[in-house]
């Protein structure tokens, strides 16, 4: 009997130890950003394509106010409510972060303190970012206004409030692979980067599986709204029959082919995409058209 207990205890410790190792936060190599010089002008494109302001600007911000990244936007989910933090370049934000810190947050989903970040920050998308783009983004964000608004804690219940568990989640859901494996033209390749590495369209337009990860077999095929009400539309070619020109124009102005206009979160997305080069909006449209 005693030897049986011994076995159970040893097995239990072994499993706990394995989980501890498997859930460890993995950061980028310490020299990942060495030699990279950020260009703020290029970083502005990364900023708007990445949709940072959609969540990190104050919820009612308009126009220039969208550049004050004081946070406060609430993201409802089945796991609890996430509150977008202040990421302005000051003491209440991320002013003390290095480019390496930003790269770890975006590409590895790990904070400067070495803790897992919640994937409400869509690092499952940003993990595809080029380190040069992170350096450029950092250079641009350093030029933005400072806000002293304090970040608010997420409202999560057990067990989702244990960050360590995200290490296991990442093992299932964080991948460096592109979802559109073949990008047959440079335009589609650029579109893939804008959508799969920056724009994080899939975070809302792709349904999630039981772990809360994206179900890549149903890429862009529409999903329930994570806030609980309504549905996010499908934008794969089978469902979105707009021409590539219509899609690009929608991203520029918010006007649908029927001249209705985007609302809700999508209005914020359009407000960001409107800042891009026309070629980039066309590339996003070409990418969506190239999806299976």
């Amino acid at each position: 009997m005693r030897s049986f207990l011994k076995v159970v205890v040893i097995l239990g410790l072994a499993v706990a130890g394995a989980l501890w190792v498997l859930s460890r936060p993995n950061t980028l190599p310490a020299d990942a950003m060495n030699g990279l010089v950020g260009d703020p002008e290029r970083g502005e494109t990364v900023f708007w394509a990445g949709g940072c302001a959609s969540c990190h600007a104050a919820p009612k911000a308009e126009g220039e106010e969208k550049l004050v990244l004081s946070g406060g936007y609430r993201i409802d989910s089945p796991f609890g409510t996430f509150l977008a933090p202040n990421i302005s370049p000051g003491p209440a934000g991320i002013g003390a972060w290095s480019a390496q810190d930003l790269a770890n947050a975006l590409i590895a989903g790990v904070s400067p303190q070495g803790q897992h970040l919640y994937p409400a920050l869509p690092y499952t998308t940003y993990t595809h970012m080029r380190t040069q783009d992170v350096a450029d983004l950092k250079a641009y964000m350093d030029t933005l206004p400072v806000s002293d608004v304090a970040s608010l804690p997420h409202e999560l219940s057990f067990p989702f409030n244990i960050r360590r568990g995200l290490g296991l989640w990442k093992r299932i859901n964080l991948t460096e692979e592109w979802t559109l494996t073949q990008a047959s033209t440079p335009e589609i390749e650029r579109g893939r980067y804008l959508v799969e590495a920056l724009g994080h369209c899939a975070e809302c337009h792709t349904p999630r599986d039981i772990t809360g990860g994206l179900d890549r077999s149903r890429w862009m095929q529409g999903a329930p709204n994570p806030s609980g009400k309504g549905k996010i539309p499908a934008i794969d070619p089978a469902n979105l029959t707009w021409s590539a020109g219509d899609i690009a124009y929608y991203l520029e102005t918010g006007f649908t082919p029927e001249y209705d206009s985007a609302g809700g979160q999508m209005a914020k997305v359009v407000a960001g995409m409107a800042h891009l080069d026309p070629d980039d909006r066309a590339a996003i449209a070409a990418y969506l058209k190239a999806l299976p």
Partner: protein
Amino acid sequence: MKYGFGLIAGAAIAAVVGTAAISDNGPDTKAINAAVKARQSQMTLYAFNISLLGGMAKGDVEYDAAAASAAAANLAALSKLDQSRLWPQGSDNVALGDEMTEALPAIWAADSDVGKKAMALADAATAMEAAAGGGLDSLRGAIGPLGKSCGSCHETYRKADD
């Protein structure tokens, strides 16, 4: 005592208004339905006129200065119509259901800035009226702010798409 009468009369009126607003087929339901229909028709007219301007900006329709100016003038006139009777209390999507209207209760909330948004549309439409006849590039320059003014109101005050 005069005071007391006023209070009672006020309470009585409030009660009547309150009841009428929630009854299913009182005269107020009719008025609310008519207002919803009218404001949706106005949105349709916005879209009808913007569709010509957008079609030209996009390159789907050949640019025509006179036609563009006429559509932009319509839009500017529409944006300045008095809308006070189009948005009665109790005509939101929670009260009437999503089938009937996508207008969110936030429109009527104390901190609502819907009036400011309406002004932004009127400003953008007025700018378009000035720009539309001045060549295709001039029209194109005015359509971005116009789209933005539509989106900024829909972002906060219209139920998100299904």
